């Protein structure tokens, strides 16, 4: 089985936000939630880069570690998913997550935040694959159809890569070697305790 990861090549990202839009559309993401977002650092200054960020599906995921009802699980592809039928919307995963991935559909309602929602790596949830029930709760299950997450698949500059960690790391390495620079695999050290050395 593959070890699925995301890698954003910040030197290629043009901040078009198509990944954000594609994700929202493909997964019918609730109002106010963006499972993926593009953050621009050093905006308007030298060293400006845009990074598309979502749940990184961490090794030893902090969300799973702190969940008081243990509703998280890791699939055979190392995708970190959660069971919304068990989630109590306490917000603990949000405090622990380094990437701000967990979000709640009702933020300000007396702490009644609703079930947590986050990127599923287009891999649905614990329900039967590609059923209406799964789609309503979690969105698309492209992985079960043999497809990769839509955000990375449709990225026009191929800045956002999804797939087996070793393969996308080797693609990135080759790019950096060829062009002579790279700002690194953002979030990898935090999420996977390793980085892509060129």
């Amino acid at each position, binding site marked *: 089985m593959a070890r699925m990861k995301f890698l954003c090549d*910040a*030197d290629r990202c043009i*901040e078009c*936000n198509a990944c954000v839009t594609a994700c929202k559309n493909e997964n019918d993401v609730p109002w*106010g939630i*963006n499972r993926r*977002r*593009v*953050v*621009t*650092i*050093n*905006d308007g200054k*030298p*060293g*400006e*880069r845009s*990074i598309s960020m979502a749940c990184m599906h961490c090794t030893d995921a*902090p969300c799973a*570690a*702190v*969940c*008081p*009802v*243990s*509703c998280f699980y890791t699939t055979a592809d190392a995708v970190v998913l959660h*069971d919304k*039928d*068990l*989630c*109590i919307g*306490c*917000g*603990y995963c*949000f*405090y*622990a*997550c*380094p*990437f*701000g991935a967990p979000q*709640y559909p009702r*933020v*300000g309602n*007396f*702490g*009644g*935040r609703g079930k947590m929602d986050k990127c599923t790596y287009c891999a649905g949830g614990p329900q039967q694959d590609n059923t209406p029930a799964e789609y309503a709760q979690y969105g698309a299950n492209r992985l079960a159809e043999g497809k990769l997450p839509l955000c990375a698949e449709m990225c026009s500059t191929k800045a956002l890569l999804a797939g087996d960690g070793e393969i996308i790391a080797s693609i990135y390495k080759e790019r950096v070697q060829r*062009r*002579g*620079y*790279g*700002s*690194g*695999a*953002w*979030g990898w*050290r*935090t999420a996977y305790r390793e*980085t892509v050395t060129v």
Partner: protein
Amino acid sequence: MTKRLIVALLALMLSAGGVTAQAQAPASPRGQVSAEELELQRALQGGRIEGRVSIPDRKAASLIQPEGREWRQFHNSTLTWIGGIAVLGMLGILALFYAVKGRIRISSGWSGRSLLRFNLLERANHWMVASSFIILALSGLNLTFGRYLLLPLIGPEGFATLSLWGKVAHNYLAFPFTLGLVVMLLLWIKDNIPDRVDLAWLKAGGGFFTGGHPAAGRFNAGQKLIFWITVLGGGIVAASGYVLLFPFSVTDIAGQQLSHIVHGVLAMLMIAAMLAHIYIGTLGMEGALDAMTTGRVDYNWAREHHSLWVEDELNRARDSVAPPSGIKAAGAD
């Protein structure tokens, strides 16, 4: 002619130097300024990496917040240890005290006469705070210990349902709890100002170990301590809880993590303190519970534990019956 040649040579050398300098620079200016994650993190000294987002959600601009790691450590390890030691430790101390000293009896026995210690408002308010606190404490403890203790017993579905109701109760009972604290403060603060009598009471260890009954007013030093733990500790726990109840309305994620840490630690310590309060109010002392049920306590109990308060009450009762000396009642001659 030679001068001109030298000048031309110099110019050539200079321009050649310029060319080599240009050739040394990278082909593209894109890679000149590093935007490497590790370097940025070093520049921020391990702080949060923030940028700009075009979606209308300001909090999404936080790219990486390493503080989550410390919060995870706190929640999964520190708080579990603090809570475990505080709660189990207090239960152990109380069990030991009960085993060695047993129940504190009314030394001079039941007198059969009683006097009013807490009126209906005081009792109702006490039980509003107490019942809210018990459910708040249990649902709070469940979030820290439930998945180790309850989850294996009742299974994921049952445990998730229980925890969900626990969370709802926790959120809404925060309001009667806070209201009760305010009323409690207004009702009892005048009897809970520390004074010299408390020093003597504390020096005598409250009589817990020597068996005597040091003098005390309406509240002894131990009860005053419980009062201030409840009002101040409970106040801070409530305030930090409201910050979590309304995410991002008061503070950002760092503030919410800090609020949770304050909330968790203080709540654990308060639970330990309240275990002692519950023990001494019920099992630990004969005649104590009446004060909060019927509101009337036995005269002998009151004299032993709150001698100065009884004197005050008796004086006031006498004054209400007999007129103060020096003033002749009408028709007394």
